């Protein structure tokens, strides 16, 4: 059988998706729940690869989109929790609002604290789910329209995104009566939609995450394989050339920035369902940079590579974090891994895999001369 690059690429995707779908056969509920969180991180890795690897936009504030998605659904789940429902008023009230309320304030969501009415629509889980995507995309769109129209690029985009996530985090903490500040949103209910209840330790939650990840991976890969994705990569290489070819560069950059934000927001929602909390730490600088680490180790230019990098790192971390001393050592390993990955493996694990793939392809083509362009053309015809 003759192997082709795209054939092997597809095979890798199929194998990975089969693997994550088969995981419930092996893991107990406890580990399955953990694994679902790592798959969510894998989704974040894919989001980073889209914006960093394909668009050349190193977003150091990806945690903003993740956090917005997380808080959006967490607000709905908070209102759906048993404690919120049992506060003795017509509408559910988050417990922390009662603790923080002025004495004598009405115990209604409309007016218990200033701005608490913003919570009202979140009584519908659908609203929470919608906002989990809409809010990150809206912010990404606004940011993109300003930043990319002004032709800000490279490290300046990184600094702006970093400043924005830190700013939003401060505002989130500052709005303590509305958001429970540093403590975040805990004691959440389960999401129940269409008669399905998503208990984080039940397989349906895992399957929701795994299937979502599979769809996101395939979707993101198809997205960057489209003509727009190709043009995006051209813009990454030389935005001036792309402008003079007639492409509205900021629009392309904004579109894919929004796509990356949407994936991150969705990941944030899934994370809340698996972990049952939302916290301002999602918007910490170190978390946003950590995501970039995952993508760099896995391979910044590879959607699947960045995803697997995130999952692998987190699985190892979970294994060693059983002992506190090892956990501290692990952070040393992470620091070293990062330095070494950047120094010696700029394309990450995916770069190694691509090397192996090319070797396999070359071997299967046997002694046929390299110069023959025909197989490449065929491959493109099929793709």
């Amino acid at each position, binding site marked *: 059988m003759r192997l082709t690059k795209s054939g092997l690429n597809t095979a890798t995707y199929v194998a990975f998706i089969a693997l994550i779908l088969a995981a419930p056969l092996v893991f107990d509920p406890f580990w399955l729940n953990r694994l679902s969180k790592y798959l969510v991180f894998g989704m974040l890795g894919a989001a980073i690869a889209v914006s960093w690897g394909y668009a050349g936009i*190193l977003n150091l504030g990806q945690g903003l989109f993740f956090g917005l998605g997380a808080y959006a659904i967490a607000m709905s789940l908070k209102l759906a929790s048993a404690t919120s429902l049992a506060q003795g008023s017509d509408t559910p009230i988050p417990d922390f609002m009662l603790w923080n309320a002025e004495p004598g304030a009405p115990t209604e969501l409309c007016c218990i604290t200033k701005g608490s009415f913003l919570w009202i629509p979140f009584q519908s889980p659908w609203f929470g789910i919608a906002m989990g995507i809409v809010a990150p995309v809206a912010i990404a769109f606004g940011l993109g329209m*300003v*930043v990319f129209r*002004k*032709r*800000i690029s*490279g*490290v*300046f985009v*990184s*600094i*702006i995104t*970093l*400043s*924005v996530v*830190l*700013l939003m985090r*401060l*505002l989130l*903490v*500052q709005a303590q009566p509305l958001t429970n500040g540093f403590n975040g949103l805990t004691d959440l209910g389960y999401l129940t939609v269409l008669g399905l209840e998503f208990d984080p330790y039940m397989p349906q939650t895992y399957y929701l995450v795994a299937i979502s990840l599979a769809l996101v991976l395939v979707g993101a890969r198809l997205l960057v394989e489209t003509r727009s994705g190709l043009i995006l990569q051209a813009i990454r290489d030389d935005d001036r050339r792309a402008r003079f070819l007639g492409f509205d560069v900021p629009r392309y950059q904004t579109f894919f920035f929004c796509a990356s934000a949407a994936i991150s927001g969705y990941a944030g929602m899934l994370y809340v369902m698996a972990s049952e909390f939302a916290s301002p730490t999602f918007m910490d*600088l*170190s978390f946003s*940079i950590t995501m*970039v*680490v995952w993508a*760099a180790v896995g391979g910044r230019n590879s959607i699947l590579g960045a995803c697997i990098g995130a999952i692998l790192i987190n699985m190892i971390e979970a294994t060693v974090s059983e002992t506190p*001393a090892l956990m*501290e*050592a692990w*952070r*040393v390993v*992470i*620091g*070293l*891994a*990062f*330095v070494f990955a*950047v*120094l010696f493996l*700029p394309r990450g694990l995916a770069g190694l895999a691509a090397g192996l793939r090319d070797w396999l392809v070359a071997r299967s083509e046997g002694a046929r001369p390299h110069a023959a362009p025909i197989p490449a053309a065929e491959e493109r015809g099929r793709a």
Partner: protein
Amino acid sequence: MLDTIFIGLSLGSVLLLVALGLAITYGAMGVINMAHGEMVMLGAYTAVMTSLYLGLGLIAAMPVAFLVTALMGLAIERLVVRRLYGRLLDTLLATWGVAILIQQAVRLSFGLAFAGITIAGLGPGLQNVSLPEWLGGVFSVAGSEISVYRSFIILVSLLLAALTWFLMYRTSIGMQLRAIMRNPQMAAACGIDTNRINALAFAYGSGLAGVAGVLMAGFKTVFPDMGTPMVVDGFLVVVMGGVGSLVGSILSAGILGQINGLTAAVSNDIIARAVVFAVVIAVIVWKPKGLFSYKGR
């Protein structure tokens, strides 16, 4: 009012010391050194350790801290940064890894913690440095109480800024460095040993951050993660001031310090930081090259 302005000035001064090093390394070498905040942290720990083991005061700790962090900076340049010139965002990522390593080294007493040995002064906990008595008081000017220590910080920062200016504009090494900042290839072609100058500049910038760390140890608790916000703030200063412009860094450090101090005086620290971020975002969007950028071709 005057005391508030003084608080802002002293915040700006520490910021300036951190930013100067970044301005040089970023401007000259195109290196974003995320481990720069760890130089601040190491400087602060040097103050802790020298007072603990050698009985040195804060002032005597400053040259020691400069030396320690400058050597550390030199090592980072030689081992990591040197291999990454020309890859700006990669330097950011690799030095972030270095930053984690340095933090862990302090937290784990250089790894001895694994063997059950802990070094007093290091470790994950909080450390404090006591000020000498003559630095601890206040004096009053026009009815405002002004902290002696804050004035001291401002004085030291101004002296070091002046020293930096002198080194940059009145010495041969400074001239070579400025040549590299404008055009590294051309500078190399003119016979400038860019390797050596880069390493020296990196070490010097790290040393300044170390001194900033000692100054910070005088009014803040010292802990292994303290550097991260410093490097972020330092970068905001450099970018807002305009990459490659020392004057820009000095002025924007002053502006951001005042904004921080004044906002904190009327509200709280969280809002003050938020306002600083908002101002920086607005400035970058308005003038992506910074307020005082060097106009290249």
